[in-house]
């Protein structure tokens, strides 16, 4: 931003307070996702720290694979946790993508209340990234829990990735700072007809930190690694 423009903004902020112009996207710390395409797609270089990011899409579109790749990348830097309601975490895949399993805590809650309490406690204790894999059925009570949860993760500078198979509730869509929608666009076959991978189209549906609307194509190669 040019100095003269910055000067003019400062003058206006001094005179008119919060009504004055401000940057549309305030600076936000980020945590790399582990996949360069996704980092570029978010517009800020990774997952926003202290905020909720939603990975949405139908089953088999690669969102959980992406979440686990991000978990693996973050586990190499510090402690991470995965709240696994549907029990779909694959530690073998994580070990193949060089995750540090000794840094990974897997929470298997019996109820939403337990899961939310675990996230609050672990975020406060200093876990860097928490993946929240919600059950497919609508989670009753999540609307009321989310504001407290977001307050705590913002305080603790923790990144929260929410993975949801079904259409996300309005409350989740409202509180999320970043929503990535995934869709399986095609299967990738080799010349001799063997299945080689999965082509995923990812779109930024909502972004409070950078302009939304970007799309990115990403190939999940088989075997997963």
């Amino acid at each position, binding site marked *: 931003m040019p100095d003269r423009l910055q000067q003019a903004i400062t003058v206006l902020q001094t005179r008119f307070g919060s009504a004055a112009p401000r940057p549309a996207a305030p600076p936000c710390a980020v945590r790399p996702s582990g996949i360069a395409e996704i980092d570029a797609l978010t517009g800020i270089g990774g997952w926003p720290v202290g905020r909720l990011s939603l990975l949405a899409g139908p089953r088999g579109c690669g969102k959980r694979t992406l979440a686990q790749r991000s978990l693996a990348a973050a586990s190499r830097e510090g402690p991470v946790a995965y709240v696994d309601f549907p029990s779909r975490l694959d530690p*073998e895949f994580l070990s193949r993508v060089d995750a540090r*399993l000794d840094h990974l805590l*897997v*929470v298997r809650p019996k109820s939403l209340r337990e899961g939310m309490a675990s996230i609050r406690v672990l975020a406060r204790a200093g876990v860097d990234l928490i993946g929240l894999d919600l059950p497919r059925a609508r989670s009753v009570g999540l609307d009321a829990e989310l504001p407290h949860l977001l307050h705590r993760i*913002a305080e603790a500078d923790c990144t929260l990735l929410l993975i949801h198979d079904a259409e996300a509730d309005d409350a989740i869509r409202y509180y999320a700072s970043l929503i990535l929608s995934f869709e399986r666009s095609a299967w990738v076959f080799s010349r001799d007809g063997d299945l080689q991978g999965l082509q995923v189209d990812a779109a930024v549906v909502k972004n409070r930190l950078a302009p939304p609307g970007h799309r990115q194509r990403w190939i999940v190669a088989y075997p997963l690694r």
Partner: protein
Amino acid sequence: MTHGKSRNPVICCVRTPHPSLLAAWRKTPAWRGRPLVLGGLAHERGSVLTVSPEARAQGVNEGMSLNQAQQFAPAAIFQPIDEEATARVRQSFLATLHRFTPDLADAPDPGCAFLRLDRLTLRWPDRAKLLAAITRTIDAAIGTAPALGVASSMFVSELAAKQATPGAPVVVEPDQARAYLARFPIETLPLDDDLREYLELLGVRTIGRLQTISRPAFRRQFGTRALDIYDLGMGTDRRRLQPLRPPVRIEASQPLEPPVDNTQALQFIARALAEQVSASLLSQGLGTRAVRIVLHQESAPVLAVAVRYAYPVTTAAELFDGIRPRLLRASISASLERITLRAGRLEPAYVRQPGLLIRRDGFRESIADAVARLQEEYGALVVQRAEVRPDAAPLPDHRILWKPA
């Protein structure tokens, strides 16, 4: 305890017989006034740990073998040391002194402790009354009046206490310390064998004779390391002792008569005990991160339940918030005869920050503590770790080992 540079410290050495001896006298008052040797029975192999003045008068000393001691004092009573009773006496001795001042230092001799008195002048302007109060209080606590020595250094005060008798303290003023030391033999100083031999060869047999040597001359002859000995002989003690911090134990207990089998009543009593624990914590400016609930059951084993807190809590409401769900979930199988709440992991409570000026409240719980707290709350399997076994059969149940974190 440190020796202040800007002002003259006043140090009091409080000296009592060995705590093992006091414990034995407490247990059997008839042994007072009789020769008593502690360290083991007469026929056992071992050495004498401590002796009563009557046995010492017959030639028995610490460190000699029990057999040898029996030859010196055949009519003496030989007893082993009661470790627990000794620790209790020692604890009581130090705790009593700690009530006078926190400037209390432990001494290598278990019957000895040092107090710094110059910071008590506002409360005790008359030093004689203070010394009398110390004597009286120690006598009431452990059953023996101490000998007190007062001087400007620990070394001189310890010597003074050895010269003093119960009720008649020896006070050495700072300007008289050098003259006071002059009459003691040179062995009074903590000399090593070489230095003692050299000094004897030079004809230095008293501290007074040592004081006639100049410091530079002494350093030239014996080196800089021997200067500490020289300074002690001149009345300057540069030793620093760690201030004693007596362990704080905060607990509240309530016998239940008749035994209680009603959950509501139990909660009511637990809340009252939480109030007591909270009051104790508040009075000492402390917070607790863990409370242990001990439930004594009628004709059933004692049940202990642990409660952890994310940050040090002090108020009864916060304490009870953690205690109540544990009580309700505890597997109590019989009526309760007693309930005890014991506060553990005590920390200063004054650093609590309400979060107005900084984003956090100033406390951070370790991940291990957080996981332990979640597992206590929701069961061990709520937080798990995964381990991959590459050599196992290619079945998820075989290759991946899930275990509680």
